[in-house]
């Protein structure tokens, strides 16, 4: 268990799969995530099984409130070149009824602290849609810096979107 101020991170459990199945099929909840195709219960069960042992190669977590209400998932990925001590951050708080309570920012902070303090990362990066202003603000609150705009890099909803690259280096977490 990785405790934060408002949330805690734990290994995914099989019982999470049904909630993930519902939430990841909620197109409004996943609009910022670039999810394209409907996900099956089997996909979610397999994800939970694969993620059951968080490790350096794939630090997947279930995110829950301090009283144990499941909120979504998060993780640090792309650590395949450990020499770079760099990972990509992914956060999917897909229960829409829990939005606007500061859980997102606290999840980012908690996950990044874990990345720096336990995984010995030097750099945590992420990709976010340029029009996803709310998420960008949450990342900036945690200390992330905008580094690049990949123009028209993502297709969805019948149009191209720009992607913003952001990163946080060790010592910059707020």
């Amino acid at each position, binding site marked *: 268990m990785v405790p934060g101020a408002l949330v805690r991170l734990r290994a995914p459990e099989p019982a999470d799969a049904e909630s993930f199945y519902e939430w990841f099929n909620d197109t409004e909840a996943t609009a910022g995530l670039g999810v394209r195709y409907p996900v099956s219960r089997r996909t979610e069960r397999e994800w939970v099984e694969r993620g059951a042992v968080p490790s350096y190669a794939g630090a997947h977590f279930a995110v829950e409130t301090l009283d144990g209400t499941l909120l979504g998932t998060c993780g640090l990925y792309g650590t395949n070149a450990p020499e770079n001590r760099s990972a990509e951050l992914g956060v999917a708080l897909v229960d829409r009824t829990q939005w606007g309570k500061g859980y997102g920012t606290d999840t980012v902070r908690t996950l990044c602290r874990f990345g720096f303090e336990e995984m010995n990362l030097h750099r945590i990066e992420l990709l976010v849609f340029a029009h996803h202003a709310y998420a960008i603000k949450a990342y900036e609150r945690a200390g992330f810096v*905008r*580094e690049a705009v990949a123009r028209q890099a993502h*297709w969805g909803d019948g149009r191209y979107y720009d992607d913003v690259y952001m990163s946080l280096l060790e010592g910059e977490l707020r």
Partner: protein
Amino acid sequence: MNGDLVTLRPMDPGDAAAQHRWFQDPDVTRYTGFRYPPSLTAIETRLRGAEDSTFANPRFAIDRRDTGETIGYVALRDVTPESRAGELDIVIGERSAWNLGFGTDATRTICRYAFRTLGLHRVHLWVFTENAAAIRAYEKAGFVREGVARDRWFKHGRWHDCLLMGLLADEAAP
């Protein structure tokens, strides 16, 4: 596939010796992600077992048109059909072919192939910010600077910043 100065052709096992020689040259690998020197056997095995180019990963050897000499290779990686976007990867391994326009021409040629044959919308690449010659060549081919990722790669005892560059179909030279 012909450019003005180079021909792009499928790689074959006969390219192994040249590739092996390039990867022994620290001036060739200085600005690449490359760290562990591959054996000749490993390169031969990889080239012999290599599948044909695919939409997701087309790759070519670069031959000079004037002498027929093989001077490097160029590839697209992680090409996604929905976003119609992929990443460019190029190495000019023959030092005698540097600064003569071959890299620029190979870049133009594979981008023309990406846009006109594969129907892509965008090609992007990452380059070390200190690799000024490469950045000049990419700009000549039409690539636009999109931002700098700090400390993205660790090599030679320190962190290196990497520049993201992108080229859209309607920006490429005809």
